[in-house]
């Protein structure tokens, strides 16, 4: 779809040789907004052997460094403070979410995200408190990888990268764009930026202690479980959390 979009725009740009970047962007946006055809993709893991090695490295790092650090962090941090930290980072992600809502042609969601950001940044004291939810503005997120998907870009193969976790080329590209749009990445000094990023990572890992412990204890193949969870969840989010009965596989004849 992205390729098609550019093919559509190319002749327009050629005809109007003086087309400004702003106009080109506006045209691109217009075409993007009508690109709604999104379909689920099956898991493609052609690099499974390499991915499993990466997964093993990641698990080792997690076992001896990340998980102990997360548990120590949780031990010394009151729940109230953890919630405030979660809220702050969720709020910081909203500028990128808002831009992606625009690119995906979702005006209502754009307004919701914008209003949430404005309210929580001000009344919510830099995002610490989710005041917007009390006004009926429920959390809503979009990311750049979802925008790419809605524009028709294929996900590419499944990838597992140590410290980064499950991903795909499309998702990696999207993450890079999201990172660029994050206010945190625009902190000039590494001594200011790195502790903030580190705190976010610590909070994220701390929130996953029990879930991952449970999954590790019960999964028949942890790598495959993680891959399935990641892939299905991403598809679900790209489809805006809609589950249609029309897309279910035919299983009726599999029973007794």
């Amino acid at each position, binding site marked *: 779809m992205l390729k098609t979009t550019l093919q559509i725009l190319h002749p327009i740009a050629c005809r109007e040789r003086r087309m400004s970047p702003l106009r080109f962007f506006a045209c691109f946006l217009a075409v993007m907004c009508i690109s709604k055809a999104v379909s689920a993709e099956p898991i493609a893991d052609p690099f499974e052997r390499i991915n499993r090695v990466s997964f093993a490295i990641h698990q080792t790092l997690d076992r001896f460094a990340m998980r102990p650090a997360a548990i120590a962090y949780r031990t010394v941090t009151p729940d109230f403070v953890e919630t405030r930290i*979660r809220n702050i980072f969720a709020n910081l992600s909203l500028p990128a979410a808002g831009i992606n809502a625009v690119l995906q042609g979702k005006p209502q969601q754009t307004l919701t995200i914008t209003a949430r950001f404005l309210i929580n940044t001000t009344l919510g004291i830099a995002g610490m408190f989710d005041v917007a939810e009390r006004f009926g503005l429920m959390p809503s997120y979009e990311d750049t990888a979802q925008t790419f998907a809605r524009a028709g870009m294929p996900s590419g193969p499944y990838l597992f990268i140590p410290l980064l976790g499950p991903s795909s080329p499309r998702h990696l590209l999207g993450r890079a764009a999201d990172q660029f749009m994050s206010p945190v990445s625009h902190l000039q000094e590494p001594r200011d930026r790195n502790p903030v990023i580190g705190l976010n990572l610590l909070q994220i890992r701390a*929130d996953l202690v029990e879930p991952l412990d449970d999954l590790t204890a019960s999964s028949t193949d942890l790598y495959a479980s993680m891959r399935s969870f990641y892939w299905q969840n991403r598809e*679900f989010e790209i489809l805006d959390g809609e589950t249609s009965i029309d897309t279910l596989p035919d299983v009726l004849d599999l029973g007794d």
Partner: protein
Amino acid sequence: MIMTSSLPPSLFKGFSAILLTTGIAWATILPSAAADGPSAEDYVTKITQDALTILRTHQTDAGREEAFGELIDRTTNMRRIARFTLGPVARSVSDEELARFEKALRNNLVKIYANRLASYTNERVETQGEQKKGRNHLVASKIIFASERPPLDMTWWIIEEKDGSFTLFDIQILGVWMAQEQRDIFTGILKSNNQSIDALIAHLEKQPTSAD
């Protein structure tokens, strides 16, 4: 596990929620009462009530496992779940092999999740309407947590059998179908073992018997 600040919070929240609730999902897929209720939505309500009753009344691991085993036998069509999770291999296995796999799958699910569910006694599930197409029903619901955690969306795939009764086929939490996850795992195990169902059964039988 996913360690980057550039990931969207929704992914973290979703992933965490999925992992957190896998237990209760399978917990509630295991229970279910024989229900000739008027709708699939009523059936789901009954299932969740039965699940919580078991969790609250059986204090020992053995007791919970036995109760869940009985429920899964009564209310799910395990043959259908077994065939689905096997994927295309299901077409080439004998009836005897399929029966052994079905038993191993059932025992594996019961042992793992029945014990984990001990901590899920105060949650409740509220149904919120259903979609119907042919014999397939999708029932939307929310898990309401006793703690301050926000409610979580959950979808139940109920199948109307030819005799008119309902059976539970799968549960989806934040986009993740549990049976599909099992299928993804089994596909990999079969692939790395030359499509041997005996290897898959052995793999299931050697799995941990509880989430310690």
